[in-house]
Structures are given as structure tokens and as C-alpha cells.
């Protein structure tokens, strides 16, 4: 079949779906939705529909990005706009169906916004809400809108037109288009994609490989997973285009085994591609043949590093190797290999669909296009976001993210995962692009963005990341294997109040050794969380070391809980809830915490009635309390 005929058929199917005379119900059933209970919601909705004999189409779709509001259910009545509802539980779902489809009540109280041309009373326009307004959804354009298991939905929305166009061009012309787009590697290093492709294309060799790095392993990052779950074909189309440019006959997708849904969707998408002539011999009737293999990772973070990833594909232990030779010259099985991140491949397909110039309209001078982030931590609205480069951190955190959770104060934002750094409030008005983040001591990374509030101890945070990297170090090179372990030991010491004055200098020295001496990116960037926190929050380190005090009141061994004698009413709630029976007292007796016995769980603070506020958490301060329970003062 000719591609235009394929497109026609796909468009017809798409129109039949979107414009059917039946109500349409779309449910976010990506991993984030499922984790929030989407499967039960689907079942509840289907039950309700059948109970009431309502004929409606129910479709699971990918993540639309508002993870904080999952499960999300969208309802579109024939001829009407689609309305998106958040936090729909299995319990309220039947009522929602009844209200929307029978009682004609749009339930503005549960609505997140409407999508479409026709306004719905009392409900804001979805893309005008503050969470979405600053966003530009290019890569994520289909997520939440198409059935990710339906190839025709992808084609009807421009899918594979990029490949069709690519096959009509010479590889040089495609590289020129990529150059025009200004696309840079979305794995974090930001190397110009066209150049990377060009190296591999020009490398001598009959057998070449391309790889999609879907070993997303940064704590708190889920951009790639969401994209693979919500729109797998967009990534695969980019890969076929890249393979054509570079003359690769085989491609690998190295995807975490911990992403079962993404793997399932990839397998299905690849099968569909083969059946429709987008993969295999003579792709789309051309002379070009290419095939894809999905390789599941085995849970090692370091396998996200390109050379380790290739070792892993080869069936060896995932350990990085020195470069040069670079993969473009000698990669997988010693053959020229190009490896790109999930998002880079998806962007490539889009660039071929819409043109490099069109793409370059988005973003900043040096960083073109958009970037997806997983916005997590202490923000009101966590989720999967896509913003144009150049946007300010403040817009991301306060507009998209809705500000800091529970009205607390912003302290820092961590970008780039364990390889990145923590930036304080002074950087809130800095633009988000490769250069600015690097200048600040952090990195773009693949898109993890963790927001910290005033309760976060930066020393403890650095310890957390170091613990992660030292455990995930492959063990091959000395600076990473031993250096991170030594550094972690110091951080652990400091957070336990055992820090020595020379520790900070020693850590600085270790950080430099690890950074300059390590073999691969994992080691070279491992000290970044320490280096940036030392740079921007040195006072916290000094407080821990010199005063044995944790200013954020987070490090357990440096904090104490006390019951203020003039506030305690002897209600016994704290004593009853203490898990280790560390609180002595009695009715109308001022309670006393047995400090050596206390495990610093904070339960007493949480349960003390707000009107008394008798429990305090302190660090480095002495609070006068009686040694034994004494009667509560009269008159209270």
C-alpha cells in the first residue's frame, strides 16, 4: 500500500473515533495512572456504562502530564468538548458517569479543564490553566490524545510522514535538516545531534548499529517511560530515520526491565511497524532495510552510560570503557554505532515531519526546541512537563508546579539526577538551557527536576545522592569505586554529627579526584551534588561540622524533640503514640521525653494537638525541661 493510502485509512479511523456519535471516555492508563488506581477506575466506568446501557468508547491513553491529579478521566460527549477530570477514584467514577452522561452535569468541581473549541461552563480551558500555559507540547503532543496501541492514531496525527519524507531525501539533506533544527542530545550532554549522526554516517564500515538509550535510571525521572508508554511510534520513527541516515541495518532499544508497560508497548509497536512496512526489508518500498531489537536492562544504573550499555547488549557485565575510540567509530561489537536518548529520537521524527526551521522557532539561542522534565519533590503539582528551552526555573516551579507544597519556602532545585547539582533560589530567574545550568554547576541531564523546600537538609541530600552513586558505581575505576565510598563515609559522619573540621577540605579534594580522575560520566559527575551544595549551602555543612547542628532539622542524630513544660497539658496523646515508649508522664503531668530512648520519629510532634503545640524539634539548642514529669501548672 502507498503511504498516502495508509494515511487515508488511518485518518478515517481517527475520525471515526473522535467524531463518532458515541460518548468518548479516555483514561490515563500509563504507569502513573495505574499506580494511582486507574485500572480500578476503568473497571468501575465499564461496569457503570454497561449497567446503564450506555454505549461509549473507553480508551486507555498515555500520561497527559498531570501526575498529581491521577487517575485522570476525560469525557467527551458527542459534539461537545472533552473535559478532563482529576483524582477520579473507582468510588466516584460511577457518579461522574451518571452526572456527565445522564444528568448533563459537567461536574466543574472535579474538572481540570476542557479541551476543544466549545467552552464548558465554569471550567477553564485546559491549556490555559497555569500548569499548562507555559508548556509547549511537541514531543508529548500525542501523549494522552492517542491510543498508544493504535498505529493508525499515530499516522493520522502526522506519524511516519517524517520517515516518508526522509526516504525521499539523501542522508546529507536529512543531516542538513537536523542541523537547521539545532537539536541537541536530550540524554543530558547536549551534543549536537546532527554532528553525532554525521560522525557515524561517515565512519567506515559495512555494518553499523543505532541504539536508543531507554535505560532511564535517575531517581525521580520518568520522562522516557511516559513517552514510550504514551507514544512509542514517535521514538521508533526517529530511529528508522536515523538508521537510514547512518546506514545502520540493525537497531537496539535498551530499555529498563522495570518498565514492563513500556516494553509491552514497544513490542507491540515494532510488530505493527513490521506488518505495515515501516520496519524490515525494503522499508516503505525503498531499498532501505532495517530491523529493531528490544534489549531489557538488568537494573544497573551505569548501563545508561553509552559504552557500558553496549557491553550489556553484548552480554557482558555493564562496565564503561575509555573513549577514544568513540562509539561512532567502534561501538557495539566494535562496529560504528550511534546512540541517542529516547527524547532525541522522538524529536528527530518530529523535525522530519515539520521541518528543521519550524523546530528551531522554539527554545533559546543555543538550545532549540523543548525539553521534557519530570517535576517532582516539594511542589504542589508534580508531573511530566514539556517546556521550551529558555523558560525560567521560577516559571517551571511556581507556574507549572504551582509553587512549594504546603506554602513552605523554596530551598533548592536539583536537576540532572545524581550527576546534577542543587541550585538555590538565586538561580530561579535563570533560563533553563544547557549552558546556564552547566555554568551554575549543575547539568541539564535527561530531565529529572527535584524541588526541595526548607525542610530539606542539603548535607543529607548530598549524602543521599552519593549513596546512590557509590552503590551504582560499576567498580571498574578507582576514583569512582573508592572515592565515592570515601566521600559517602565523610558525609555519613557529618550528618551523624561526627564531622571533623578537615572533612570539608578532604571532601573537596576527593570531589576533584573523582571528577578529574574517573573513567566515565557516572564518576566524573558523581561529586556534583556535593560540589554544588558545598558551593551554595556551605553554611549548612559548617553548622553540621562545627556546631553539630542540622539547620533544616532533618538529620536525626542532630535533632532532639522536647516537650515544653509550660505548654504541655498532660493529655497523654504523645505518650500513647510513642512507638518506643520514650515518653513518661501521666494525666495532668508534664510529659518528658527520655532522650537516649527517643528514635526521633517525630510522632509526638505530629500528634500533639495544635492548640497546645507543646512539642518542639530543635537542633543544637538546649531546651530546659524537667528531669521527671511534674504536675501541669494550675490555671491552664
Amino acid at each position: 500500500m502507498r503511504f498516502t493510502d495508509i494515511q487515508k485509512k488511518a485518518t478515517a479511523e481517527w475520525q471515526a473515533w473522535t467524531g463518532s456519535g458515541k460518548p468518548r471516555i479516555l483514561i490515563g492508563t500509563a504507569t502513573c495512572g495505574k499506580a494511582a488506581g486507574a485500572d480500578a477506575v476503568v473497571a468501575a466506568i465499564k461496569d457503570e456504562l454497561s449497567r446503564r446501557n450506555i454505549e461509549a468508547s473507553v480508551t486507555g491513553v498515555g500520561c497527559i502530564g498531570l501526575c498529581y491529579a491521577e487517575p485522570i478521566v476525560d469525557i467527551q460527549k458527542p459534539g461537545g468538548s472533552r473535559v478532563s477530570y482529576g483524582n477520579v477514584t473507582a468510588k466516584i467514577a460511577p457518579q461522574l458517569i451518571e452526572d456527565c452522561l445522564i444528568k448533563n452535569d459537567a461536574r466543574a468541581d472535579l474538572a481540570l479543564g476542557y479541551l476543544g473549541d466549545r467552552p464548558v461552563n465554569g471550567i477553564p480551558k485546559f491549556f490555559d490553566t497555569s500548569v499548562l500555559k507555559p508548556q509547549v507540547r511537541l514531543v508529548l503532543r500525542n501523549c494522552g490524545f492517542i491510543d498508544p496501541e493504535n498505529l493508525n492514531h499515530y499516522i493520522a496525527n502526522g506519524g511516519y510522514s517524517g520517515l516518508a519524507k526522509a526516504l525521499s531525501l539523501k542522508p546529507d539533506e536529512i543531516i542538513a535538516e537536523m542541523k537547521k533544527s539545532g537539536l541537541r542530545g536530550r540524554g543530558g550532554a547536549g551534543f549536537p545531534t546532527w554532528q553525532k549522526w554525521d560522525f557515524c554516517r561517515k565512519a567506515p564500515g559495512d555494518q553499523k548499529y543505532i541504539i536508543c538509550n531507554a535505560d532511564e535510571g535517575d531517581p525521580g525521572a520518568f520522562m522516557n517511560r511516559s513517552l514510550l508508554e504514551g507514544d512509542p511510534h514517535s521514538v521508533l520513527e526517529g530511529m528508522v530515520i536515523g538508521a537510514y541516515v547512518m546506514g545502520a541495518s540493525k537497531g537496539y532499544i535498551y530499555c529498563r526491565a522495570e518498565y514492563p508497560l513500556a516494553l509491552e508497548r514497544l513490542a507491540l509497536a515494532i510488530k505493527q511497524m513490521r506488518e505495515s512496512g515501516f520496519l524490515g526489508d525494503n522499508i516503505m518500498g525503498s531499498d532501505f532495510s532495517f530491523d529493531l531489537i528490544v534489549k531489557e536492562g538488568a537494573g544497573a544504573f551505569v548501563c545508561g552510560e553509552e559504552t557500558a550499555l553496549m557491553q550489556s547488549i553484548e552480554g557482558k557485565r555493564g562496565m564503561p570503557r575509555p573513549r577514544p575510540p568513540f562509539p561512532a567509530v567502534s561501538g557495539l561489537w566494535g562496529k560504528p554505532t550511534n546512540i541517542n536518548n529516547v527524547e532525541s529520537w522522538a524529536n528527530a521524527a518530529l523535525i522530519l515531519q515539520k521541518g528543521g526551521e519550524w523546530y528551531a522557532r522554539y527554545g533559546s539561542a543555543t538550545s532549540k526546541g523543548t525539553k521534557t522534565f519530570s517535576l517532582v519533590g516539594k511542589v504542589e503539582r508534580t508531573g511530566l512537563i514539556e517546556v521550551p528551552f529558555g523558560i525560567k526555573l521560577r516559571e517551571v516551579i511556581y507556574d507549572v508546579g504551582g509553587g512549594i507544597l504546603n506554602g513552605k519556602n523554596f530551598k533548592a532545585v536539583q536537576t540532572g539526577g545524581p550527576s546534577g547539582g542543587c541550585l538555590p533560589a538565586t538561580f530561579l530567574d535563570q533560563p533553563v538551557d544547557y549552558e546556564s545550568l552547566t555554568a551554575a554547576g549543575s547539568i541539564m541531564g535527561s530531565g529529572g527536576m527535584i524541588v526541595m523546600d526548607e525542610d530539606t537538609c542539603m548535607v543529607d541530600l548530598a549524602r543521599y545522592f552519593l549513596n546512590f552513586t557509590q552503590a551504582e558505581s560499576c567498580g571498574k575505576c578507582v576514583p569512582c569505586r573508592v572515592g565515592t565510598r570515601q566521600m559517602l563515609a565523610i558525609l555519613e559522619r557529618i550528618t551523624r554529627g561526627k564531622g571533623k573540621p578537615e572533612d570539608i577540605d578532604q571532601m573537596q579534594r576527593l570531589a576533584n579526584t573523582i571528577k578529574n580522575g574517573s573513567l566515565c560520566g557516572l564518576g566524573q559527575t558523581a561529586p556534583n551534588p556535593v560540589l554544588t551544595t558545598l558551593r551554595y549551602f556551605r553554611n549548612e555543612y559548617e553548622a553540621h561540622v562545627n556546631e553539630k547542628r542540622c539547620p533544616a532539622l532533618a538529620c536525626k542524630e542532630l535533632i532532639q524533640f522536647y516537650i515544653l513544660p509550660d505548654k504541655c497539658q498532660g493529655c497523654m496523646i504523645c505518650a500513647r503514640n510513642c512507638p518506643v515508649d520514650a515518653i513518661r508522664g501521666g494525666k495532668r503531668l508534664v510529659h518528658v521525653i527520655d532522650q537516649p530512648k527517643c528514635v526521633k520519629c517525630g510522632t509526638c510532634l505530629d500528634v500533639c494537638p495544635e492548640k497546645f503545640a507543646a512539642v518542639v524539634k530543635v537542633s543544637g539548642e538546649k531546651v530546659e525541661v524537667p528531669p521527671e514529669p511534674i504536675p501541669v501548672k494550675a490555671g491552664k
Partner: protein
Amino acid sequence: MTETVSEQKPAVISVSIDGKSVEVPEDVTILDAARKAGVYVPTLCHHPALAPYGGCRMCIVQVEGMRGFPTSCSTPVTSKMAVKTNTPELQELRRNIFELVLSEHPWQCTSCVKNMRCELQQVATYIGLDKVSLPSVGKDLPVLTDSPFFDRDYKLCILCGRCVRMCQEVRGAAAIAFTYRGGDSLVGTAFGQTLQDADCQFCGACVDACPTGALMDRAAKPVRSVDRRVITTCPYCGVGCQLLLSVKDGRIVYSEAAAGMAPNNGQLCVKGKYGIPEFVHHPERLTRPLIRKDGKLVESSWDEALSLVAARLSQYKGDQFGFVTSAKCTNEENYVAQKFARVVMGTNNVDHCARLCHASTVAGLAQSFGSGAMTNSISEIGDASCVVVIGSNTTEAHPVIGLEVKRAVRRGAKLIVINPLEIALCRSADLWLRHKPGSDVALVMGMARAILEQGLADMDFVAQRCENFEAFKESLADFDLDTVEKVSGVSKEHIVEAARMYAANGPASILYTMGITQSSHGTDNVLAIANLAMMTGNVGKPSSGVNPLRGQNNVQGACDMGALPNVYSGYQSVADPAIAAKFETAWGGKMSTKPGLTMTEMVGAIDRGEIKALYIMGENPVVADADATHVAKALEKLEFFVAQDIFLTETSRLAHVVLPAASFAEKDGTFTNTERRVQRVRKAVEPPGEARTDWSIVCSVASRMGASGFDFLTAEEIMNEIGELTPSYGGISYNRLESGGLQWPCPMKEHPGTPILHRTAFTRGKGKFFPLKYRPPMEAPDKDYPLVLTTGRSLFHYHTGTMTRKVAGLNQIEPGGTVEIHPADAEALGIANGEMVKVKSRRGEVRTKAKVTEAAAPGLVFMTFHFAESSANVLTNAALDPVCKIPEFKVSAVKIEKA
């Protein structure tokens, strides 16, 4: 000094190291360039045999125009590159990294077994680190002692990975690997199993590669210093590995591979590494002559023994005497022995155990090519595009050549294994043809036919370099693939695939051993292989050829020296009057032009009373020969039997006089390995007691018999005579061998040796094709003896076990023999794994343990011949090849019963 195999040389470029300009080939690393410039760059994880690793970070440098601190071991040089190795910034970074290394390593140098021999100490000296300011993060781990030969103390391990990489990259064994990760990383076996369970081959390459005391030979631990180190040639198999023996207080304390020397390039197998000192210094070594008195062997003086031997032998001159020389002895000793037989005893009845292994090769390849030896060199195998391993269990019998096969596979070569047994190489093979034992001619001719039919033959080579092709082609008519499939049990598709793979992937090398030769039609097997190589043009080119892997350390040399009944040294025919005249002039006396009896024929002649006196030097036919019971009975009929050996063997026990000989470690001389490389054997220690070198014993007997021409003072003098009378050895002298071996033909002092034979013409002029017919093995299984027995070697023992069974560790790993039997056959016979069984043939029976394994094919059982108490050769068939008189060791009909 020898010609290089690769024809293209990389360009030479100039780089600057710390301001010193140095010219290097463009394919080397910065580290190589620095070493060439004489600049020391510290390394820990670097090893010349291994791919760059970049783990220890000690060799970091700064390169102009390159950011960061690249590791010099992994970074290739580029033209005009400017490298700094010791800027203050580098030295500080290096010191900080090294401090991290030490923080993971115990600081107990003075009590460490590796003290003063440790590479960590060398680097510490360079860096000048005086204190470690970081706390110790070392691991408290027990010393692992499960290997019989070495200890693993991972407390001392710095995770440089040299052992792991050696085991994986070079040895292809992968018994050890990195386990866990991060700071918990450790070297170990899968799931912590024992090394033996992890399929460790105990080659000790990991131990030799370890820079610290983490891996150490137990024997080397107490030896803080040695008196001397002697480079010599391994006495086990035909590979001829170069050993470095460490000697202290007159004893060999341990053995290692000599670094950077052909043919083994720093590699050994378990026998060369761990099987040397114990047998050399074994208390059972013969130290005084023994004379049979009243039926008992009793010690005597040399004078008495020599007088007796001289007097008795004088009574058996001519063809009533036979001399069995030894493929374990040096060239010089074999030369002296055959000279003794011919000059003093006046007979050509001289032979040795080559008769039992490669007689068919010598006969077959001499007819096809004109020279019966490996056409190419060991080091070329790894560069082949296709390797065919037929009738050879290379990794067991020639372990270091097995490494070359694995290297070829790693480089992407096609590997075709043709073997009825599932050998270890099958795992690496692209194609494994499991043919029926004895069907080789049919299978190889079938391949030849497929090659011809597919148009894959190199007809230019055939036309220009070969003859008799048409006759060969006509004989292919018998070998249509249906017939071949029926005879060999290999499917037509596989035959065609193998043919295509071999013909289309040149250069292709064929390796074979006893599976081909030890057959009643062994010569035909060899001719079939030669046909196959010639028709594809795979002769005379690098990494191609027909490569018989010789079994014994000096079986090639013993043949070269004329320890054969039909030729003098250098394969000069005894029947040729002109040659006889040459030797008569050189040696004096009258030479017989009547070819003598082969070793296998001698047994018959003894049995018939035609040979009455026998001299055996260093061989053990009672265990090694087919139908061994018959051999022992024959020997008992001898009127006079003198045996010369290092131990009292199953054979020498039967002798009238036993003369104590020196082992390889106690004498000078040369061995010629399987690739025709003549290599020095150097004396490391004194012989035990009164033991003497074989050559000096034979010379003494000759002198006492009044012969002249046996007054050699040194082995070198013998070699000089060999050179004068042997054209192919004409250019070989001890002087030239000092720096490494020389491959014959080496006719002149200036000749560099010949790694590749038949380059422009075959030795015989044109390569000759031979038409062949298929003949089945002599003994087919029947209802009485329904199973086929085939025999072979194990990695852990050698031949009749005379040497290896004196080594406790080898006995621990493999204490005794087994018969390998397929589960289906075992089940039918009700035999469980490990059960004692009786194996019976028409010639005898032995008791041994059953090993139930799918490595054996249904209907086929396998035994090694190392173990005298369950001697496989009691069962084997002495049916002979009509041309070369080799017995059919590889196919005997047997039955198995519960014991």
C-alpha cells in the same frame, strides 16, 4: 628475524612525550610511545596481552588540545601529539587516586608474601606517597584455598581486573568474573562456587597476571628470592611453550610462562604451569642403574650396567635388534640413538611413538606436499578467517593452540568443529559436524565434492600449483551427498554448509590430530584433508594450511632426527644409495639400505622371535600402544631388553637392565615443536643421584662397544653434527637459538627460518591430489560388542601419566579414568553416573567409573589413555594402516557391563 604474517605495516608517526620526540607506528597507544621514549608511566591494570582497560587511572596524562586526563594505556597516538606525563597537576591527581587504591588495600607490606615483588610497591615508589590520610575501606575476607595450586586472598585485590580479563579475553574460560558492584565489587566465581565447579582450567594465567599478592602460587609463597631463572621448553605436548623455571637450592620451586616469547606468548596450560617441579623432584625418580638378578631389579653401578649392556647388545647386531627412541627426549638424543642403531647395531630397526600418532601425517603429507609437518605457524591460526578443527580436542590436548582458535573466533572467524564427541570448542563453533567415528574420508570428500559443485574451488591454484586433479575429481563420483550422509551421519545440508563456510572464508586453516591419524586408513584421512586444502588454494598462504598438531613435545624433532626406520635425519631415505654413501662417509662403516621395522611391526617381530634384543629410551608402550596386553606379553619374550627412563614405568619394569635418565630440566638440548620450531632445552638443576642424560648413556654404551663417533662432550656438539648432515637444520646452531626458536627448513646460517611452507612451490614441486575410496573402520560394533570406543587426552594428565600422575594437584583435579557414556546408553544398561563398570573388547577388559554425559554420542563411549589401572589401550585395536602402520586407536568395538 622471522618473516611477519601481516603484509601491511602501519605508518610511522612522530609524537612528543615530555618534550622527547619519538617515532612510533600509528596504531600504538600513548603508553607504548612513552615506553619507547624511555619515560616511565605507572600502571596497575595494564597488561600487554590484554585490551586497554583504563581502570586504575595511574597512567593518566595530559595531551595538548585534549580536555581532561586521558589514560595513556587506552588512548591511541596521533601525529604530532604532545603528551605530558608528570605535570604537578597530574602528579597530584595521581597521588590522590593512588591514595584511594591504598585505602582499599591492607597496609601490611612487610608481612605480605608479595613484599618486594609487588607492583603496587613499585608505583608507590614512583609516586612517593608517604602516608594515607583516608581511612581504610578494605574488606575482611578469608583466603580461598580451593585451588590445588594457588591461593586467592581478595583482601589484597586492587580490582585491576587483570585476572578476570586474562581468563575471559585470552583464555576464553571465564571461570572468574567481577561480582557485585561499587565498593562491594569483588573478583569471584559465579555464585561463589569452587574454581573447579566454575570450570577453571587451572592454567594459572590469572596468577601470573596479578600485580599484588591476591593471587599467588602456593609454591611461590615462601620463596622470597630465587637463585636463578632458566628459560626452557615445556616437556609435555607439542606446542613447545617457553617456560621460566625458578630455581632455589638446586630445586625448581615454581614454573611460569616466559614472557613475550613464541609460541606461547606468556601463556601456559595447567601442566606447564603446575606440573613441572613435582615430577622432576619426585622421590620415585630412578637414581641408579638397575639390573635384573634372579628375576628382581636390583641397583648396580654404572660400570656394571654399561658393561652388561655393551656385552649383551654385541650379541644381537643386525636386524635382530630394535631401538625405540623417544619423542620426549631431545633432538640430540634421538639423533644419537638412531645413529647408534644404524652405526653400532647395523640396523634400520629404529622407531618411536610417532608411529602411534602422526605416522599417517608423515606418510600422507609427504605424498601430497612433500613434507609431513604443519604447513603454517601457531600464531597464524588466530588470524584465519575460518578454522576447521577435525579429530582434535584442541583445548584439552593442545591448550595453548586452543587459545589461538578462540582468538580467531573472537576476531570473527568461522569455526567448524568436526568431531563425534561434543568437545569444548563446540560451544564456540559456527558449525559442529558430529560424524560417525572412522567416516572422515567420506565426509571430507563429500565436502570437496560440494565445493566443486558450488564453484567454490580455487581452480587457478589447482592449475598452477597442483597435479593429478582429474583423477581426484573422478574419485569424487563415489561421494554423492546421499551416500556421504549415510556413511557419516552428517546431514547433506550441514556438509554443504561446512563446505561453503570453509571455501568462502579464506584464509582457512585446518587443524587435526589423532582423530584423523589413528585409524586403519589414517593416511587416506590425511590425503583427503590435503586435497581439500589444495582445491581451495589454502596452502602456502598466511593463516591457511594443513596443520597436524603433534602430540609429544619432541615428536616432530624425533622424526626430523631420523628416529624412523626408513629415513635418516631430515627425511633422507635409507634406501637411497647416494644418501647411504653420504652417511657412510660421515659416520664410517656400512649402512643398511633396507628400511627397518616400525615400532608396531617390531612388536610382532619380537613375538615371532625375529627381534631378540630391544633398547627402549623413554617410552612406555605397555600403556601407550594399542592392544597393550599383547605388547607386554611380547616384551617378556625378549632375550635382552634394556630400558632407559626417569621412572620405573609399566614398560621398564619388564626390562633386564634399567638405566636412570635425566629429565628435561636436567639437561641441555633442543626440542622441535609442532610448528617445526627448534627450541632450546636448558639445564636448570642437576639430575637426581647418578642419573645421566640419555645421549651420554647411549654414547657410553657405543663407546664400550668400540664404536667411534660417539665422543660428544656436549649436546651442542651433537647439534653441530646434525646441522652438517641434515639440510633442513643446516642453519641452526645453539648460538642462534639463544634469543628464540627457529622454524625449519633453515638450511643456512643466514636463513631466517620458514614459518610457512610451500609458499611458491610445494616441497615436492607440485601439490598432488589423490583419488580416494572410503573404507570403514576395521572393527564395527556388533551384537557382542555393540559400542564404539574412542580414546583421547584430558587437559589435566599427559599420556601414560608417568609425569602428571606424580603431581598431587593434578591428581586432585582428576584422580582417575572414566568411561564417558551417553545417557541413553547408560539408561539402557542400567548404569548410573559414577558407577564402576567393566569395559570389554575382544582384546581385554578394564574396570573404570562411568561418566554419564551427552558429550558422548549414543553408541559411542570415550576413555582417556592416561591411567594404567584402567588402561584404554588394553581394549584398543592394533589393526594397522597399510601404509604407515599406525594402529586404529580411535575405533574399537566394546561392551560395557556393571562391575
